[in-house]
């Protein structure tokens, strides 16, 4: 892997992803600065592929470009991507092209009744519960990728002091809107689902709404801040304070 770049400039490679896709690998490490480049490339693909574009999947270091091979042959698609990349690299300011990402403030009630791993995270990190909350809510996060479930945003990078592994056994049922951490990432669950992340609290945000324009509240490149609120405020904003059983590992039972 000779791609590591010290200048922060992308070192693109175009890789096969099947008959209808090319994976553009722009970076080899996770960095906030990747997002502007990936966003700028996505916009250019939309313009350049037009009707032949089927889907785009941006992630931490890559952009998967899915096209209709009957409208554009794989070889022609590859050439078009190579041209876009050459042009992109000649552009020193991808931020202006992609925008800085929308800022979202997610009202969050941090409490053991809805964040059953709060105490354990505090013990593991040798911090007080209050310090854990302050640390998690004390910074802005960027959305690096969406995946796992509709509207599930992988955000980072979390403060190193809060770095804890996933649960050994994932929960079968994580309540909707649970705010969670794992490794150096944080997320909020848009729907009830299985999950192995550490739950700290619950937000009031509607993360995925099929009846809303754009469907997902969060997009790759967006900025997110968790705002701690008390229970009354949480409920006033529509939060569901139904407590979750405090035992963390009841998966499979």
């Amino acid at each position, binding site marked *: 892997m000779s791609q590591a770049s010290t200048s922060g400039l992308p070192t693109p*490679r175009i*890789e*096969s*992803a*099947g*008959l*209808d*896709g090319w*994976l553009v*690998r722009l970076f080899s*490490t*996770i960095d906030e600065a990747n997002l502007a480049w990936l966003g700028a490339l*996505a916009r250019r693909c939309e313009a350049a592929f037009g009707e032949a574009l*089927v*889907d*785009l*999947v*941006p*992630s*931490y*270091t*890559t*952009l*998967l470009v*899915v096209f209709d*091979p*009957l409208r554009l*042959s*794989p*070889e022609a698609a590859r050439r078009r991507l190579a041209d876009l990349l050459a042009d992109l690299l000649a552009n020193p300011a991808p931020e202006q092209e992609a925008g800085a990402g929308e800022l979202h403030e997610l009202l969050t009630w941090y409490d053991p009744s809805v964040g059953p791993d709060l105490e354990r995270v505090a013990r593991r990190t040798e911090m007080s519960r209050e310090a854990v909350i302050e640390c998690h809510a004390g910074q802005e996060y960027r959305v690096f*990728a*969406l*995946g*796992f*479930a*509709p*509207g*599930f*945003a*992988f955000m980072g990078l979390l403060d190193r002091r809060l770095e804890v592994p996933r649960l050994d056994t994932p929960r079968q049922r994580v309540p909707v809107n649970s705010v969670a951490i794992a490794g150096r990432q944080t997320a909020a669950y848009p*729907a009830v689902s299985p999950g192995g992340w550490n739950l700290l609290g619950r937000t009031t945000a509607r993360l*995925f709404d*099929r009846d809303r324009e754009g*469907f*997902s509240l969060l*997009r*790759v490149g967006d900025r997110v801040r968790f705002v701690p609120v008390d229970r009354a405020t949480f409920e006033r904003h529509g939060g569901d304070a139904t407590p979750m059983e405090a035992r963390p590992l009841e998966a499979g039972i």
Partner: protein
Amino acid sequence: MNKYTVIGFRVDRAGPLALLQDAGRFGVRRLGVTQGGPADLHGWAWANRLVGNAWGTPALEVTFGGLALVAERDLSIAVAGADLAATLNGEPLALWRPVSIKEGQTLAFGTPRNGLRAYLAVAGGFRAEPVLGSVSCVVREGLGGFDGHGGKLAEGDRLAVSPEAGERVGREPAPTPEQPDYTGPATLTLLPGAQVADFTGSSLYAAFNRPWRVDDRADRMGVRLTGPRLGCRIGSLISEGIGLGAVQVPPDGQPIALLNDRQTIGGYPRLGALTPLAASRLAQCLPGQEVRLVATSSERALGDYRNFRRSLEQ
């Protein structure tokens, strides 16, 4: 239901899994929404074609059988894909050809005889309200299907169809070469991917020269293959978008071919991606069946895919 739909069928017996599928849900994968769509594109496309429907028309994907439907009106239908021992009022139903059925008749699927997934199309198509641009039913995400929320069919459900569902269509069956025998060992063409060189030499040899067996851990998300343990010099990658048919190899060395309902991003190294027709073929394999992986080029894969799409237009 609105004035552009009528009731075509009543569900008499839901069976294990019957899902409405159009071509898939596109343009929303960046939101973490899976592709969906028919696991066997070939069988689905032919069922539609036989009743005169355009590409993308919603049809019912019946997995493993068990489904029984009562016609609520006269209908023109076709069943293609797997032979699931379908009957019409107890008599064997002809597959891969248009069939006229009468109000009150029962269309019932038995158990697999050849393949795993049958496709039922009606003239003009099944009707449902699209969600995020598609009616494809993804149970895990609660999207699509007749109820719009990814719900499974239940006894008593009434399935909406086009008002043209009773109109007469042609009589021609699908050409014999288009009616596959799914029972033998399957040869699956694969486009090698970027990490192929990171697998050990003996693993690469094994991957493309040894038989693989379809595991019983197989669904619309992916199909696990068991066989020689493949070694890769990379354990995991930073998660990235994954295409249809991607063959990923987790640390246990047993490949998983990812199908329509796969997660949108993933981080295991990949041998490459099955061609669309190979992914379709795999979707018709039952657990225990033997498959072989064969490397191909995108030119050949494109040629095969073009021929398939052209055959539907003749």
